[in-house]
């Protein structure tokens, strides 16, 4: 990875007014910052096709299904439901019922290079698409486009909460059109997204790489560009995902992106096998039962489904621990700055106010 420090970066700007060449590359690098991200959910307008049994019931409805006429004790109802959220079981549901997305169609990537019996076909006809997460979230209103609440708020906090800032930097690039060997680095940025006069996210903003607290989110991998489309080599990564309540992250195995590149931005899909435990505990850690009710999202039922549908990374007992997942993403070009060195190293040498 080419590490252009700020001073060096500026000094190299001899172009007219600092203007970039038309291909958007500067010193064979280009930076991008994530501006849109959501599960790639294939939908029909009324949902009848992929959700023939309708959409899922949320906490409110499940509460009635579980407890109405059974008990009216707080400990056996509200606390029991919260306990189930914290420690979801895997036994089949009896009083509640979870609706998985049906059918063969889904957006996503072929993660394992195989065409398996449970794989999907993409709307473009590509076979072998691995995206079992679609079955989990596809019939839950919180995640359906364009404005499912969780879908909207995860994205909205991704945009407005710097904790979630996500950078993608390409180095050793000969051309944005074709280059079979480029270096790709993902990291956390520290700065707000740039906006234009209409309030839309704009290209050309600055992002500083977070080397102070975000080093766990820095990953470097190889990629190749074919006809303007970047594909990265599968890499295990984590990335921050928080709605400003808790401060969790997602863990994805064999993550890769397939992005159409332009000097102004990049868009396409990213996919990998998401760690089921980490994914699940993110749900209550960043949003509450109250919020999950916005789009009728039954957390414990989702857990059961995810465990059942998990399709990768088996543990010692042979149980799959990760589930294939695809997101649609959009990036805006950004100028990325690398600070010289972190002023303080996280984890050691931290000044202590309380412990002293």
């Amino acid at each position, binding site marked *: 990875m080419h590490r252009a420090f700020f001073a060096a970066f500026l000094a190299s700007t001899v172009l007219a007014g600092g203007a970039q060449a038309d291909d958007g590359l500067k010193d064979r690098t280009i930076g991008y910052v994530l501006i849109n991200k959501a599960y790639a959910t294939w939908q029909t307008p009324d949902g009848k096709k992929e959700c023939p049994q309708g959409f899922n019931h949320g906490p409110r409805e499940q509460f009635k299904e579980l407890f109405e006429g059974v008990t009216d004790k707080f400990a056996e109802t509200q606390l029991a439901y919260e306990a189930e959220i914290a420690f979801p079981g895997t036994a089949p549901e009896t009083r509640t019922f979870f609706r998985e997305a049906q059918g063969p169609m889904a957006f996503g990537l072929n993660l394992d290079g195989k065409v398996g019996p449970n794989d999907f076909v993409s709307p473009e006809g590509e076979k072998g698409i691995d995206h079992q997460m679609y079955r989990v979230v596809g019939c839950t209103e919180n995640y359906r486009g364009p404005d499912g609440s969780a879908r909207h708020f995860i994205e909205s906090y991704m945009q407005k909460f710097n904790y979630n800032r996500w950078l993608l930097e390409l180095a050793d690039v000969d051309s944005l059109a074709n280059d079979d060997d480029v270096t790709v680095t993902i990291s956390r940025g520290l700065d707000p997204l740039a906006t234009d006069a209409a309030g839309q996210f704009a290209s050309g903003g600055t992002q500083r790489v977070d080397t102070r607290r975000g080093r766990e989110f820095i990953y470097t991998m190889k990629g190749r560009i074919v006809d303007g489309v970047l594909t990265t080599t599968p890499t295990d990564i984590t990335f921050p995902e928080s709605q400003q309540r808790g401060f969790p992250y997602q863990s994805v195995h064999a993550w890769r992106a397939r992005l159409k590149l332009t000097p102004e931005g990049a868009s396409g899909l990213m996919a990998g096998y998401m760690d089921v435990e980490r994914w699940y505990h993110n749900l209550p*850690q960043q*949003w509450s*039962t109250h919020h999950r009710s916005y789009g009728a999202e039954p957390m414990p039922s989702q857990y059961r489904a995810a465990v059942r549908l998990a399709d990768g990374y088996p543990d010692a007992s042979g149980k799959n621990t990760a589930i294939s997942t695809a997101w649609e993403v959009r990036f805006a070009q950004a100028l990325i700055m690398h600070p010289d060195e972190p002023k303080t190293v996280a*984890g050691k040498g931290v000044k202590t106010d309380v*412990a002293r």
Partner: protein
Amino acid sequence: MKHIKGAIALAAMALAAAAHAQTRGKEPVEDYVREPIPPGFQVIVAELEGPVFADAAGKTMYTWPLNAVRNGDLGERKNEPSCDDTHYKVNTGLQSPYPAGLELPEVATRPSCIDYWPPVYAPAEAKAVGSFTVVTRKDGKKQWAYEGYALYTSHLDEQPGDVRGGTKWWRKGGDGRETGVLRVPAGPPPAVPPQFDVNQIASGRLLVTAANDRSIYVYDKDTAAKSNCDTACLREWAPVLAPENVRPQGEWAIVESSPSVKQWTFRGKPIYTHLLDSIPHSREGSDVPGWHNVFTQKAPPAPKGWTVHGNREGDVLADAQGRTVYIYRCNDDAADQLACDHPTQPQVYRLAVCGKGDAVLCNKMFPYVIADKAAKSDTRIWSTIDIDPKTGRKVAAGAPGSLHVWAYRDRPVYTCARDKKPGDIECDSWGELFGMRNGFKAFWIRDDFGGYHG
């Protein structure tokens, strides 16, 4: 009066207005505005919360101001005390999405509001003093109020200076929608010029600007007589300027390093804000060598050997082994909003979210932080208590089968089995409403991004 450990009791009325620079050991404590207070009342400078009002017996006073919970309002309006002897049987259902009318846990023994929160009654002839007024309860009894809000003491406070019933800290981190409507200790305002304010955080009482909550810093190279922040320095640090006709007083003075520029000094150090701090009350500036945040009083130190670790969001407190420490928080959903976060209170709430009702699982998932038998604390904020691990209840010291554990504000602290290395926060925001209502929050020391830390 029992021996007071840590706290400083001051008979406020007797003190000269110029009194300042109180200390506890070597550490200075917060100076406060001497307001007129009713006879028999006193101001106690508590270890963590700074100056609070207390009754003659040294019991800290609290208010319960109206606040919004998810689907309605609870708490008290000014001049309208509502905390009474009702024994509530069911929840309010204001905690969306759950319905009302559910029978509360341990309902047969559930106390009333005033069992937990005895009103500070006023004698029949009591008259308003300063911001203290007398309000009439529904039963006709008179009660003291501060700034209109009725005053109560807490059944949890044992010694003068204890502020176990509530804290000024958690009010900042969230609101009623997340935490339920909490009690707040009442106290006199800090003796800071109107340009400043004091924020309660875990590390102590942080000095900030009143206008926008920017944290205040001091610089090692400065002296009381001179600021040594040069041109380059001034691009990142803004001196906090004082009025031309200011009357320095108490711990506050001015320094005039450049002609015609009066800069505030606090306890003999010129003070600044950090222009690069990215969010209100950010403490990023203290990463710059030589620069420090300013506290009117620092929190008592954590147990010996405990550590602080950074992570992707900020810094957390950890035990001597580097395991992140967690606090358990709980407020119930009845109209009187009784707390459930203390080991003398119902444990069914905690058991639900820490182990699905199973104490064994609970203790495995969220182990207590075991204290050495000989462990000692110089502060009542950090203490060791004995817990029956089967019930989670507090028991007498040395009771058979009990665990000797560390407690913060008289409540046990925990670690998390999912954490693997120092700085991990896998169990932060665990439980109902991301741990704000019935669950676990990491012991946050610092937050660089802004969020709901509790």
